[in-house]
């Protein structure tokens, strides 16, 4: 499959490339320069014409682009970037799009602070934090396009990443400390990357609708969120054991 990756030089990009390069032909794009053996084109995801041009000849688009803090660029990249990607998909008859974001693009503070057992199909409550809201708006743009075009969008939502075996948190590290618990939405880089392989492999007719959201994290004991849908529909089976973080040392 010919796969376009937007934002390929971010934190997750190298892991996704490593997981996909044995199986697919990759066209990498990023606003920053990238030293890679794969085809690389410098692209600003907020540039509609450029995004449309680089999507020519592709079978799928993966959107890893993100801008979290600058207010102008956050709307440009995280929200309007999705519009540009979907216009490109329409233009080139690309029927498979994999979008990404944080879990709070759906389950913002009004879920996270109070509830447990939260699944990915609840109505979006991103709140007003710039990162969450702009990613949620981007997700909604994708969703509206799927209503009118034969394009399937899979939204893979992540939060904290770590190297399962080598991560050593600093004292007070809010992400994960061995024996002191971890953020109840954490996944290893390797398992996160493998979810993209699943999203490219899945028969589109196996998806319940043209717009599906998935929470991507391994089995965690907190019961805060649910990964059941990702395992059941995508067939994603995370391999890395994170239990050392939530068991007392």
């Amino acid at each position, binding site marked *: 499959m010919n796969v376009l990756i937007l934002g390929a030089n971010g934190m997750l990009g190298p892991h996704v490339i490593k997981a996909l390069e044995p199986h697919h032909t990759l066209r990498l794009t990023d606003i920053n320069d990238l030293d890679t053996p794969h085809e690389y084109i410098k692209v600003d995801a*907020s540039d*509609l014409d450029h995004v449309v041009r680089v999507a020519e000849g592709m079978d799928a688009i993966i959107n890893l682009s993100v801008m979290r803090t600058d*207010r*102008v660029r956050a*709307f*440009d990249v995280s*929200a*309007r970037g999705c*519009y540009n990607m*979907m216009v490109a998909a329409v233009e080139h008859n690309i029927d498979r799009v994999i979008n990404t974001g944080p879990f709070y693009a759906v389950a*913002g*503070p*009004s879920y996270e602070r109070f509830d447990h057992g939260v699944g990915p199909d609840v109505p979006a*409550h*991103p*709140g*007003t934090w*710039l990162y969450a*809201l*702009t990613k*949620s*708006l981007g997700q*909604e*743009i994708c969703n*509206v*396009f799927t*209503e*009118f*075009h034969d394009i399937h969008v899979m939204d893979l939502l992540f939060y904290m990443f770590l190297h399962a075996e080598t991560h050593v948190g600093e004292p007070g590290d809010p992400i994960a400390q061995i024996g002191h618990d971890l953020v109840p939405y954490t996944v290893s880089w390797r398992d996160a990357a493998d979810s993209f392989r699943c999203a490219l492999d899945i028969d589109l007719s196996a998806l319940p609708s043209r717009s599906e959201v998935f929470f991507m994290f391994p089995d965690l004991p907190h019961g805060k969120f649910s990964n059941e849908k990702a395992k059941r529909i995508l067939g994603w089976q995370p391999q890395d054991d994170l239990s050392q973080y939530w068991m007392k040392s």
Partner: protein
Amino acid sequence: MKILITSGGSDLSRHLADSLATHHDVHVTDRDQIESPHDFERSDLDHSRATNSLIAGVDVIVHSGASDPDASASDQLDYQMRCTYNLLRAAVEEGVPRFVYLSTLRLLDLYDEKMAVTERWKPRPTTNPPLLATHLGEIVCREFAREHGIQVVILRLGELTEDGESQPSTSALYFDDAAQAVTKALDAELSGWLDIFHVQSAVPGARYLVGQPWWSADDVSPPVSLGFSPQGRAER
């Protein structure tokens, strides 16, 4: 009351400003330099102190969800998402108590005309940039209402129509009726966070139901009503 109206150069905003100015201290802003008989300040509605200064001391912001039809799709989306965000963020910071967003009934046009569509129905935007942009603007409003306690009133307006139109559409809204709805939205006693109202005139075959009170399924919240009563052409 001190009122700020955005997109001051549009026909609707000009009409609203003139109408509201009979009882309120009306201020107008626009991203372009325009001529206005009211207190005018040009603003990009950017992420800057200038936006905070623009709205400081304002009691109600009336923000247009209509896009400039000559603008690019990117600019239309940017305006309704980012500029609406900037306005709301500044409003929260400056303690502005109420925000009125002028959306459109076209968000419900995909439903069968025979259906009794009310504010409880899910919006169905298309990918057409002006409509998609307004839908996204509503979402920005909704999240601020949910999180910050600022009172947001979304008025979904019908098709703005000149008074003398001989064959108005079934979702027509005369400018005076629009002004009446906005006037009511300034100080109506509402839920205190997010309230949505459909607004159109009483034209023949009127497509959308208006003026019905909202009610909650709980036994605590009283019904909420804007008090809007369309006049229609026959009564004008």
